[in-house]
């Protein structure tokens, strides 16, 4: 038995020499400095592969959106590379139709999940493009950045959002998208019905009246499929002037300190309780 033990020990000793794989010790160091959230927001499967790619110089530290700017700077200093200029992105919801402004045509009483509701004839909401408000995004968010408000609409905390994209994938109505924080002008509606019909379903729907397009600099906003569409390649031209005359307040100016701001002419929403079903 002892001889067998010695023989195997020798075998192991040889194997550990012969089969040794050199691994850059910096990978462990850098991984330690990463947030360990394995969220995938950077586009890699997790923090370790991201660290490996950092060492190889294939990515920049700034691409980690979960780390604070200081922590990313620390990694950049450690590796002696540039931190990279990656603009912060935030998940934005293209719907403002809470239960106080958007009609609910039927009471849904199945599983409490937007995905399940959307599979049962699209859920109970009158606007079939709108947010179902059952909070799949709130559940899936690993960073507590999404909370459902009293009108059953998700509110994204821009400071906590890491742009990991989980809410974008989970939303059955495809209402979330990741947007750079410099994009302040935002159309919070996806209803493709003609104006009057859209407004019947939801008080804050885009009616495609084209006032925003007329007021904004040429080419910034266009009307497509009964909706205002912003050309973000001309984002530098965007200003609050575009939202001022919107009658329903569907186009908003995003301000992460005060929340989305509606224009001067947007009709006031006084109702706080949910609309009756039917």
């Amino acid at each position: 038995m002892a001889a067998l033990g010695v023989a195997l020990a020798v075998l192991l000793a040889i194997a550990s020499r012969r089969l040794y794989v050199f691994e850059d010790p910096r990978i462990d160091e850098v991984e330690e400095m990463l947030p360990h959230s394995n969220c995938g927001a950077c586009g890699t499967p997790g923090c370790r592969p991201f660290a490996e790619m950092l060492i190889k110089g294939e990515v920049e530290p700034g691409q980690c959106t979960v780390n604070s700017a200081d922590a990313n700077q620390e990694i950049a200093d450690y590796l002696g590379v540039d931190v990279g200029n990656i603009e912060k992105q935030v998940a934005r919801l293209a719907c403002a139709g809470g239960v106080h402004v958007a009609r609910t045509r039927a009471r849904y009483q199945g599983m409490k999940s937007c995905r399940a509701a959307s599979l049962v004839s699209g859920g109970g909401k009158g606007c079939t493009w709108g947010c179902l408000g059952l909070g799949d995004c709130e559940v899936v968010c690993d960073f507590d950045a999404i909370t459902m408000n009293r009108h059953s609409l998700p509110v994204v905390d821009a400071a906590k959002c890491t742009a990991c994209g989980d809410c974008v994938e989970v939303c059955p109505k495809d209402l979330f998208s990741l947007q750079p924080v410099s994009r302040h002008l935002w159309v919070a509606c996806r209803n493709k019905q003609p104006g009057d019909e859209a407004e019947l379903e939801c008080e804050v729907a885009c009616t495609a009246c084209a006032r925003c397009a007329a007021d904004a600099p040429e080419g910034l906003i266009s009307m497509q499929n009964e909706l205002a569409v912003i050309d973000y390649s001309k984002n530098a031209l965007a200003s609050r002037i575009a939202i001022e005359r919107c009658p329903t307040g569907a186009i908003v100016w995003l301000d992460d300190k005060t929340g989305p701001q509606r224009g001067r002419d947007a009709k006031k929403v006084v109702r706080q309780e949910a609309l009756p079903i039917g």
Partner: protein
Amino acid sequence: MTLLRWFGRKTFSHGVHPQAHKEDTADKPIRRLPFAPRMVVPLAQHLGKPSRPIVKVGEEVGRGQLIAEADGFMSVPQHAPATGVVEAITLMPSAQGPRVPAIVIRVYEASNQEVLWRTPRDMDALTPEQIVQAVQDTGLVGLGGAAFPSHVKLKVPAGAVIDTLIVNGCECEPYLTTDHRVMVEQGPDLIRGTQYAMRVVGAKRAIIGVEDNKPDAIAAIRQHLPADGSISVEAVETKYPQGAEKMLITSLLGREVPSGGLPAQIGVVVNNVGTLTALGRLLPRGEGLIERVITVAGPGVKKPGNYLVPIGTPLRFLLNYVGFSGSEQEVILGGPMMGNAVSSLDVPVTKGSSGVLVLSSSEIQAETRRIHPCIKCGKCVAACPMHLNPTQLGLLAAKREYEVMAERFHLKDCIECGCCSFVCPSSIPLVQYFRIAKSILRERAA
């Protein structure tokens, strides 16, 4: 195979026995529904590409007139269900949820049942390819509920040899008696349609499978069977989901469709009795599919029965006609096992709607039970007709491990029959979990 099979009873293993609830409508003859003042014909009532409208707003259309043409092979045309004028081509609510493009027809008050547009053809002169084209021209889809274009199903894939055509007359869903009444009343059309389908797919024999709780349907069809013995009627055990095509093939022939495969690979094509009856009636006359039989049943309905309903009739009109009261009710399109609750009564009856079920509030309350944790009793495993493991799939679904469900536990073989949810003593909505998982996987693949 189950013991029953050894004793000569045609059946499959697993499955469940829900209460049939068919007594209210099984003996009610098919009755015509009057025209609704406004009909909504969605351009996508079938699986595949939506059809292309060929009429303009303000144009007059005659009953039976082609109003939208097929867009490619995986598509079917639409025909006007009544004489009237095209009021709009716009987005209208659909039973699936999203608003979809539809042709809205304002029906003339004087519109009558005469089909104004038809091109009678001599069926004996047509080749199988020409029949497939003729089937597409009728706009026919599977009337059992899936709404799969019929001509695609009849087009046998290259290399496959079909020996048997199975005609599905099981109607295993509770409450529904659509196919039952069609078999009792329209036997000659069914036999003619079956013969056309046999010619197209090249099958030497056809078996009409009927659940043994419909002896009158079996007797009625037997009277019309051709003398050469090519078509036979077989009684199969009354069990849910006997009417799923894979189950019925196993029951009648003892063959199993390979995982992820098609019945054509094992020499079988399955068609619903309603579909083949429509085929037998429409093909020689050269008409389009503009009406279908629907069972309207449930405790919330005053005059339950089987109605011949023009396609495009809004549910609200249908339900007002048969008499329904109150708003605290659940309206289900299809049967109670696989049908879907509708969120708006403005949705129209489409080619794939086989029944409308109205449950009153007391039943909904009884069914909305609390969900308890899985106790691993295995009832769902014993119920799953596809021999999957719903227990394991359910646990994985809770952890959102959708890829594992698909790769290791054959999620894609799930036919969403709902047997697992039906038997679960903990009231776990298993089939709902699986539908969610499948929908997310479809999105990821896209």
